[in-house]
């Protein structure tokens, strides 16, 4: 089936009544949970898995869940801008300049550019997805264990380089993630490891519990400790349509953000969070007025918001072609596909063409719906935020606990949730960027398995990683990255000898501010 035939077929599925309804409900829910801090797309999707179970076709259920996922990328900006409190992780960067803009009385322009940027980027992302995924799926069969090992290793390393204020701390986080993942059954032999005799640990830590604890509970604990200054800037939202001047200023940021988002989104371990961080760094570098960043630069909103939307579409690519989920939410959609009897992987495009194209077509439609939901209706979403944080926080904790409990109907999950919440809290307090933790956790079994499988295949020889062209290329990139990063930190050290204030380098300053609490404590 050609791409255009496929798309036409896809639209015929996506435009069916119930699919349209579920796409709309998904987008609506996505926006709502994007707006509400604490309850991210991963948590919501996990809560809705039982509902999906009862749906008649896999296409419908994925259309619904995908709508929640990319919808939350739109909604996330609202809270970041108005409350300085990111609705979900990928909107963390938006808070830096978006909230400043709101304080200056330009909340409307910030919200508007975020919605328009998201629409453009989302659409670019889906177009990319339609054209890149099918040929990539054909290609994906050539990925054996050595290639998977190389790919996941590079993905993890990229995530550390891109998301942390400190490489060392990033690597420590990564190692914690890998260690946590090794608890439970050995993925290859089924032997029990590191459970200390606790039955609840036999299946290992649950990914959703980990993500909810580190991001949800950890975030709330940290926020409560800080002064609760996040006043909602509701009085001065004003016109949500940005001026022509704003748009001209932001147009390249949107285009750059879309491209960065798309490329980062394809990488396993990429996803929306890394994309928005990368875009912010790039915008700051490209800007003629970098001093405006952190003070309310419109490009600092437009770039990351576009990037996270493009990435959310692009992150479907590794899922649908390789069967590798790039992030927490996609991991949930992976689970939903399995529930419906569809195994994501190189054969999905061929064997489940209706699912593949139906979901893609629904994304074109969903992006349009979201533009309508977000631009004129932003005032309604703001009403959601009038709930004081003192009430919202316990409510979110309640949702999180219920969500975690409902996954396996097991109280043990709530204790592990609490454990991960404390872990997340201390990580934030000690300025560790939590991003690489869940990522390492998801990718650990793939890394471990593919390494062991490769060595079994080669009879123990490491040459297998360098004699196969795809693996060798990937390792080439990996080594180049390590060298580049090494050079950068060397240069940085030299510079810091000259002027002691610049200790972290240009590229990372934004993230330092982030992790030192610029985003939530309201002091910055």
């Amino acid at each position, binding site marked *: 089936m050609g791409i255009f035939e496929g798309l036409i077929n896809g639209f015929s599925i996506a435009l069916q009544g119930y699919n349209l309804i579920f796409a709309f409900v998904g987008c609506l829910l996505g926006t709502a949970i994007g707006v509400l801090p604490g309850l991210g797309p991963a948590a919501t999707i996990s809560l809705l898995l039982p509902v999906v*179970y009862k749906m008649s076709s896999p296409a419908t259920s994925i259309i619904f869940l995908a709508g929640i996922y990319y919808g939350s990328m739109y909604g996330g900006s609202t809270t970041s801008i108005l409350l300085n409190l990111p609705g979900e992780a990928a909107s963390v960067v938006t808070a830096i300049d978006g909230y400043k803009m709101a304080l200056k009385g330009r909340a409307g322009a910030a919200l508007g550019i975020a919605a328009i940027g998201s629409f453009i980027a989302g659409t670019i992302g889906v177009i990319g997805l339609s054209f890149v995924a099918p040929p990539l799926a054909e290609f994906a*069969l*050539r*990925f*054996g*264990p050595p290639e998977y090992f190389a790919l996941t290793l590079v993905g993890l390393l990229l995530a550390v380089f891109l998301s942390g204020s400190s490489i060392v701390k990033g690597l420590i986080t990564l190692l914690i993630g890998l260690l946590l993942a090794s608890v*439970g*059954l*050995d*993925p*290859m*032999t*089924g*032997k*029990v490891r590191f459970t200390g005799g606790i*039955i609840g640990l*036999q*299946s290992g830590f649950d990914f959703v519990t980990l993500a909810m604890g580190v991001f949800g*509970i950890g975030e*709330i*604990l940290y926020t*409560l*400790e800080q*002064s*609760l200054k996040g006043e909602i800037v509701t009085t001065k939202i004003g016109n949500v349509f940005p001026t022509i001047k704003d748009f001209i200023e932001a147009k390249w940021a949107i285009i750059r953000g879309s491209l960065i988002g798309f490329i980062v989104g394809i990488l396993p371990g990429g996803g929306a969070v890394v994309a928005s961080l990368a875009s912010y760094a790039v915008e700051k570098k490209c800007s003629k007025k970098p001093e405006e960043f952190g003070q309310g630069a419109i490009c600092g909103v437009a770039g990351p918001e576009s990037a996270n939307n493009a990435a959310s579409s692009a992150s479907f690519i590794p899922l649908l072609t390789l*069967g590798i989920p790039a992030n927490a939410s996609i991991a949930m959609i992976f*689970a939903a*596909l*399995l*529930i*419906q*009897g569809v*195994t994501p*992987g*190189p*054969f999905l495009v*061929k*064997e489940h063409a209706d699912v593949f194209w139906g979901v893609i077509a629904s994304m074109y439609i969903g992006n349009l719906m979201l533009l309508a939901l977000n631009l004129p209706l932003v005032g309604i979403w703001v009403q959601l935020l009038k709930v004081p*944080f*003192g009430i919202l*926080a*316990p409510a979110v*904790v*309640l949702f999180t*606990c*219920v969500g975690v*409990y409902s996954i*396996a109907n*097991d*109280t043990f999950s*709530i*204790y592990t*949730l*609490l454990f991960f*919440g404390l872990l997340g809290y201390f990580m934030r307090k000690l300025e560790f960027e939590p991003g690489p933790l869940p990522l390492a956790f998801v990718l650990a079994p793939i890394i471990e*398995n593919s390494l062991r*499988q490769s060595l*079994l*295949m080669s*009879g123990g020889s490491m040459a297998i990683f360098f004699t196969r062209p795809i693996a060798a290329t990937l390792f080439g990139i990996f080594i180049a990255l390590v060298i580049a990063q090494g050079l950068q930190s060397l240069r940085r050290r030299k510079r810091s000898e000259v002027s002691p204030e610049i200790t972290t380098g240009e590229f990372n300053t934004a993230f330092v501010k982030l992790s030192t609490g610029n985003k939530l404590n309201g002091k910055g």
Partner: protein
Amino acid sequence: MYRKKAWRILGLLMVALLVLLIAGGCGGKSATQNNAPSQEKKEGTAATSGKYPEKPITIIVPYAAGGSTDALARAIEKVWTKYSPQPVMIVNKPGAGGVEGREFVKTSKPDGYTLMIGYGSGEDLIGPQLQKVPYDPLKDFTPIARMSIHSTIICVPGNSQFKSMQELINWAKTSKQPVTASVSTATGNVNITMRGIGKVTGINIVPIPHQGGAQAITDLIGGHTIVGGGSGNEVAPHIQAGRLRPLAVDLPERDPAFPDVPTLKEQGINFYSWGSVKGIAAPAGTPKEVVDYLAGVLKKVSEDPEFKESMKNLYQPILYMGPEEYQKFFKEAYDYFGKLIKDLNITLQ
């Protein structure tokens, strides 16, 4: 300032309280659930008090939704109400590779309202002979009925040079090269089959374990391994599309879902296995009249045309057996796998 601080402390307190409340509250509930069966286990009264069944019956699938055992459960659910006044509810309890779900059923009330499907899979016939599990597959469950057996279909990629098992074995013997084999897991039947073939033919088969059948099959189709295998529903679509070529089936007799594929024995390889047995069991101590009632319903289910149709689409042959027969079969298969594990010297590294 002062007020703000008060709010902050209040908020923190509320969060802490809520977490404790929820954890404590749920803990209490599950504690009573766990205690209940131990008190009533000896009596097994609940079922005998009135007419069974009085309420919906829960069937635990000890795996995540979407697998072949889950699919079998759903196929049963679909036609169940034609033959029983109370419906069945399918509950997935994945975790610890099927161990947690089994433990849950073991500790449930033996009143016929909590059953397990997949009794006879690797976690019952193979796993417990390799490592300690919190249940005894022979003593902790009452077999009700065998529904199906998933054989392992041994395949090579569609573009492979090998057209039969003999060609593959001859090649391995003359070239002295190791034969890499995609297998689902180390405790799975495919692994045992591959090792068994290596043992009886004297060729060097290197099983490469994966995290499940789907991944093993994808690696095989990509040509990253020489041979591999999987259950019917895993390989059938690929066989039809020409991406895989079936060479043999590992059962003592041909698989009714793949009548054209010869057994290993037919090709002169003196080895067979019992595949993955898909039966239904209840906790030990379930009253006989309940077991007989359920076995009767399942017998009718196995003869239902709609059920036959779904099983055909799943490439799962229907191989029904009643309680007594199934218990005998189970013991036989268990001992056979025990002997294989010993002969092949299989251990978990």
